[in-house]
C-alpha cells in the first residue's frame, strides 16, 4: 500500500462520517422538536383544522383568538400565579437550606456528622410515592390539605439538594476556607462570600432541577389541591383537557403557555448545566 491512496481514503472516510453525523443530528433534532412545532401550529388553528392532512404547518388563516379565549375558559392566570408562587418559594428554600446544610457536611467538623449524613443518604433511596399516603394523612391532620403551604413543605427540603451541593463543595479546596478563617471571617461569612459564589454551576443545576420539578409537578398538587383557586397550571391544564377534550386549538394554546416559563429558566441557565452535572458527581 502506498501512502497517497491511504490518505485519500482517510479523507473520504472523514467526509462520509461528517455527513452521517450531521444527517443523524438533523433527524434527531427533527424528532425532538416536531411535537413542539405541531403544538404551536395547532394552537393557531380552528378545531376542525387541527387534524387536516397533509399537515398545514403554517395555518393559512391563523387564529390567534385561541390565545385570547383560553384566559376566560379556565382561570389560567390564577393557575400560573399559583405555580409561579410555589415554584419561586420552593426553589429559594431548596437552594438556601440545601447549600447551607451542605456547607456544614462538606467543610465543618462536628459531632454526629456521619450519622446525620447517613440519614439523608438512606432516604434518597425511598421513593416519595411509597410514603405519600401517610404524609397526606399527617398534613391533613394539621389542616394543610388545600393549602399552598403543604406543597411548599413537600418540595422544599430534599436530601437530593444537600447531596448535590455537598459533592460540589468537596471539590473546593479547604485551604480557601482556612485562609478566610485566619482573616477573621465567620463560618457564615465563608459560606456567603466564598462558597456560594464559587458554586454557581451547582446552584444553577439545583435551580433548574427544582424549578422544573416544581413547575411540572403533578401528583403532589393532584392529591393536595382540590379547590380551583389553588390549583397549579399542570392540574388546571389537565382538568381543562378532560373537560373539553375536543377543544384542540385551545388545549394546544394553553400547553404552549404552560411551557414558556420553564423554557426561559432553562435557556438562561443551561450553559452551566453540563458543567454542573459533571462537577457535582451526578454522573456517578
Amino acid at each position, binding site marked *: 500500500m502506498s501512502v497517497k491512496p491511504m490518505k485519500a481514503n482517510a479523507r473520504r472516510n472523514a467526509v462520509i462520517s461528517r455527513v452521517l*453525523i450531521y444527517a*443523524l*443530528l438533523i433527524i434527531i*433534532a427533527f424528532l*425532538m*422538536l416536531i*411535537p*413542539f412545532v405541531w*403544538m404551536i401550529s*395547532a394552537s393557531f388553528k380552528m378545531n376542525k383544522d*387541527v*387534524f387536516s*392532512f397533509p399537515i398545514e404547518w403554517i395555518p393559512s388563516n391563523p387564529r390567534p383568538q385561541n390565545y385570547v379565549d383560553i384566559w376566560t375558559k379556565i382561570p389560567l392566570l390564577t393557575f400560573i400565579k399559583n405555580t409561579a408562587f410555589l415554584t419561586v418559594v420552593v426553589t429559594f428554600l431548596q437552594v*438556601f*437550606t*440545601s447549600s*447551607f*446544610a451542605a456547607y*456544614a457536611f462538606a467543610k*465543618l467538623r*462536628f459531632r454526629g*456528622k456521619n450519622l*446525620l449524613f447517613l440519614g439523608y443518604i438512606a*432516604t434518597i433511596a*425511598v421513593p416519595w*410515592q*411509597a*410514603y*405519600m*399516603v*401517610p*404524609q397526606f*394523612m399527617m398534613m391533613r391532620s394539621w389542616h394543610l390539605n388545600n393549602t399552598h403551604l403543604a406543597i411548599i*413543605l413537600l418540595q*422544599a*427540603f430534599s*436530601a437530593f439538594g444537600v447531596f448535590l451541593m455537598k459533592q460540589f463543595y468537596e471539590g473546593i479546596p479547604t485551604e480557601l476556607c482556612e485562609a478566610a478563617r485566619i482573616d477573621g471571617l465567620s*463560618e457564615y461569612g465563608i459560606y456567603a462570600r466564598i462558597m456560594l459564589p464559587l458554586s454557581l454551576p451547582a446552584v444553577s443545576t439545583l435551580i*433548574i432541577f427544582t424549578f*422544573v420539578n416544581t413547575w*411540572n409537578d*403533578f*401528583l403532589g398538587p393532584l*392529591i393536595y389541591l382540590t379547590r380551583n383557586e389553588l390549583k397549579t*397550571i*399542570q392540574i388546571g*391544564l389537565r382538568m381543562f383537557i378532560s373537560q373539553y377534550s375536543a377543544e384542540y386549538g385551545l388545549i*394546544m394554546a*394553553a*400547553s*404552549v403557555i*404552560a411551557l414558556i416559563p*420553564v423554557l426561559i429558566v*432553562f435557556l438562561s441557565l*443551561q450553559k452551566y448545566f*453540563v458543567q454542573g*452535572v*459533571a462537577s457535582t458527581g451526578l*454522573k*456517578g
Partner: protein
Amino acid sequence: MSQVNPAVPAAKRKNRKALRSNLVAYSFIAPNFIGFCVITLVPMVFAIALAFCNWDGVHEIEFIGLQNFAKLLTDKTFKTAFVNTIVYSVGTVPLTLVCSLGLAILLNQNVKLRNFFRTVSFFPYVASLVAVAAVWNNLFNPSMGPVNMLLSKLGVENLPRWAAGKDTAMITVILFSVWKNMGYYMVIYLAGLQGINPDLKEAASLDGANSWQTFWNVTLPQLRPTTFFVVIMLTISSFKVYDQMFMITQGGPGNATITLVYDIYNVAFVNTPKYGYASAISMVLFVLVLIITLIQFKGSSADN
C-alpha cells in the same frame, strides 16, 4: 464569650470551643434537617406501621398484622400493576440507555451548532408533562392523528390503535418516556465522556484502531461507572412511573397500563380510601427500589 477568662482551665476552654463549633455546624444543618425530619422521615416510619393496619381515615386505626400482605397475593389488580411496572421497566431502561448514549457520543463530537443540538435534545425533559402528553395524544390519535395518517398514506393496513389498543398502549407510553427522558441521561453521559482522558483515544488511534474499535475498547469501558449509574437511575425512576400513564392511557384500556404507583393512588385516594392497604403496596415498591439501590451500593464500592 470571645474574652478569654484566665481563670477557666485550658481543657474547659477547649471544650467550650468544641461546643461552639458544633453549634455553628448544627445551625447550618438545622433549617434543612428539621423540615426534612418532619416532612419526610416521620411519614416514612408511619408508612411502615400503616402497612400492618386497616384504616379508612375516619374510623379508628386497627392493627391487622400481615392481612394486607396476604391480600396482595390474591389481588388481581395488584398483580397486573406489578407485572406492568416490570414490563415498562424492561422496555424503557435499555431503549433510553442506548438512545442517550448514542446522542451523547454524537454531541461530544466537534460539530457546528453543538449547543443548539444539546439544548434541543434536552428540551423534552424540561417541558411540562401535561402539555407534551396532550400533543402526544393528538399526534397518535388512532382515527385522525398525523402519525396514523402518515402510516395509511404509506400503505399500512392494520393501523395501530396506540394508546387505545390493549397491545399497543404500553408501547405508546414507553416510546413517549424514551422521547421525554433521553435528553437528561444524555447530559449525564456527556459529563462522563468529558471525563475520559483524551490520551487514551489518541493511543488507540496510534495503535491503528478504527473509530468503532476505539468505541468498543476504550470509550465504552471507560464509561462503565456512568452506564452503571444511568441504569440504576433509569430503573428506579421506571418503578415510580405514574404520571405518563395517567395522562396518556389513564391506566387503560382495561388495566393494561396500570402501574404500582397508579394502584397506590387508586387504593388510597379514589373511592373508599384504604390507607393501610395502599401502604402495603407502597412497601412492595419500596423493596423493589431498595434492591436496586443495594445493587448500586455494592457496584459502586466495587468500582472504587
